[in-house]
């Protein structure tokens, strides 16, 4: 797994819905192998940005992953270029087993001849992912019966077997216990060894521990960018989060209300 690492490069991205501009000229660069956190108040445009990158909503501007332009391609083509995402609500296939979920995720490049045959045994990359996400003992369990945290890991596992080079995770630790968050963070660190990771997250504690870089969005624009410390020290960020400027270092501390 020593494939080429790619970075994400967004230039002047704009998304509007019926006159309302959700993303208003965002430019940002995520270095290859980075773990970039996107934060910002509700309505800042975080999820819409990810929607635009993955082709779910129409956008103008430019989104390049490596040397490929993503804008204008349909969702499944973007996915085949190695861009994968999760959603705020977990979207595993609940009627299928963990193994079947991973096997489907691993198979987008399969030929029809392969698709029309039965699966025999467990493909290597699926077995590996089962170990990484800690669900090897539950391979034959229906995904719908998994605990919330396990579903989120299964989602990440599906991105791994899909062999995406860019992971876009929308609030991966929401609703997780402390232990589960730690495990998820470590999983992200491991995953980022040969992939680029972008995380939307509200949990500031999680952010401080696992973010390498942070971009703060506000009202569809980039408000601030840098390391966790730099962003926390930025008075504009404090103003957005708390409504007024405060002493450096004390904010933002809580998840937004």
């Amino acid at each position, binding site marked *: 797994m020593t494939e080429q690492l790619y970075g994400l490069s967004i230039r002047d991205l704009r998304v509007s819905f019926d006159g309302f501009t959700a993303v208003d000229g965002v430019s940002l660069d995520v270095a290859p192998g980075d773990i970039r956190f996107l934060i910002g108040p509700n309505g800042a445009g975080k999820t819409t940005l990810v929607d635009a990158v993955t082709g779910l909503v129409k956008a103008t501007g430019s989104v390049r992953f490596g040397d490929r332009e993503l804008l204008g391609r349909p969702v*499944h083509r973007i996915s085949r270029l190695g861009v994968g995402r999760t959603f705020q609500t977990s*979207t595993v296939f609940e009627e299928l087993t963990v193994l079947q979920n991973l096997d489907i995720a691993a198979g987008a*490049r399969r030929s029809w001849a392969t698709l029309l045959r039965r*699966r025999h045994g467990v493909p290597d990359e699926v077995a590996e992912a089962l170990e990484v996400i800690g669900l090897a003992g539950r391979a034959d369990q229906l995904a719908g019966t998994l605990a919330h945290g396990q579903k989120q890991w299964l989602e990440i596992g599906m991105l791994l077997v899909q062999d995406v080079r860019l992971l876009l995770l929308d609030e991966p630790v929401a609703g997780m216990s402390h232990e*589960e968050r730690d495990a998820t963070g470590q999983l992200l660190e491991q995953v980022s060894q040969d992939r680029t990771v972008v995380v939307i997250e509200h949990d500031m504690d999680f952010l401080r521990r696992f973010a390498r870089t942070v971009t703060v969005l506000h009202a569809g624009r980039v408000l601030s960018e840098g390391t966790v410390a730099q962003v926390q020290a930025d008075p504009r960020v404090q103003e957005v989060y708390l409504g007024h400027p405060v002493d450096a270092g004390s904010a933002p501390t809580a998840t937004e209300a």
Partner: protein
Amino acid sequence: MTTVARDPATDVDPTPPVEKPAAGPSRHRFRAAAGFALGAALLFAVAPLVLSDFRLSLLAKYLCVAMVAVGIGLAWGRGGMLALGQGVFFGLGGYAMAMHLKLADAGPGNMPDFMMLYGQLDELPLWWRPFASPWFALPATVLLPMAVAFVLGSLVFRRRVRGAYFAILSQALAAAMVILLIGQQGTTGGTNGLTDIQGFFGYDLDDPVNQRMVYFIIAGILLALLALTRHLMQSRYGELLVAVRDGEERVRFLGYDPATVKLVAYVVAAGMAGLAGALFVPAVGIISPALIGIVPSIEFVIGVAVGGRATLLGPVLGAVAVAWARTALSERFPGTWTYLQGLLFVVVVAFLPGGLASLVGLARRRTDGGRRPGPLVRLRRSRVEAG
């Protein structure tokens, strides 16, 4: 790679660890083979022995309905596409076959009897002519419906027309087709359809022996279609189809085009319906708009719902049972049958969405010490969106 995410289920998740399914692949295969052998024995040995010629020809008719049901089970039960217009494909297959048989009955160079009767035409219409050749007509019974399904399916699935919208469109197609057939009376037989078909590739259909042969053909083809469907359902494609049913967008984000996945199931179902229509014609001797419109199209679905939409055998048994009940009741108490049919729709779909198969699954779980039913049998709420 090492495991970093610990499994916290031991302390947070109260569900007991699931035992591995007891049946390995080889045992599955054995049971399937045994099931097919049993089905073949019933259809080929028991039924012809115990049923009168009349009953056997009725069964032949039911088995044609069951073929349509197998396809609906695939498209709707596994793929989430509520195909309410399968009558169109049944009709295309049926008309293709009936046109050939009418031409064969009339003899080379002659026009079918009804065309002479209406007397509007001096010669055979152009689009009838290829059907004189069995080499065109027989493949057409399957390929024509598949082609129509392909065109409609690729147009609507690619534009993400789905759920209720798709159901309504497929139903509207059935309505349009019936109106078209009725309107072109001179060349299609209009409301009467194509009737009074005498021969089947040189065999006289009035002869009970030949009717029996038609029954055997139908039973054999139904078994073959079941084998094909079973394979599709258990293949990786079958798993993917369920995934598309439950999370079309998610599948898209995994790099698949769900439109193609759905299209395959829809086209296969259309082919099955076409084949069923084609075989219906020698079995019953008629094809008409009344057999393929909105009402019969939706009636194909009820058998599937009763039997268990997401299972392999449920649609077949459900379709045969509903068709049998219809014959048994509707002759003596036509009103009662309509009430009963309405109630079937209400009770089964609202309160037993898994169909009778889900009852079997329940019973088996109880006696079998907790072995889970096939994951796909347990049809929870279908999350197919309305838009």
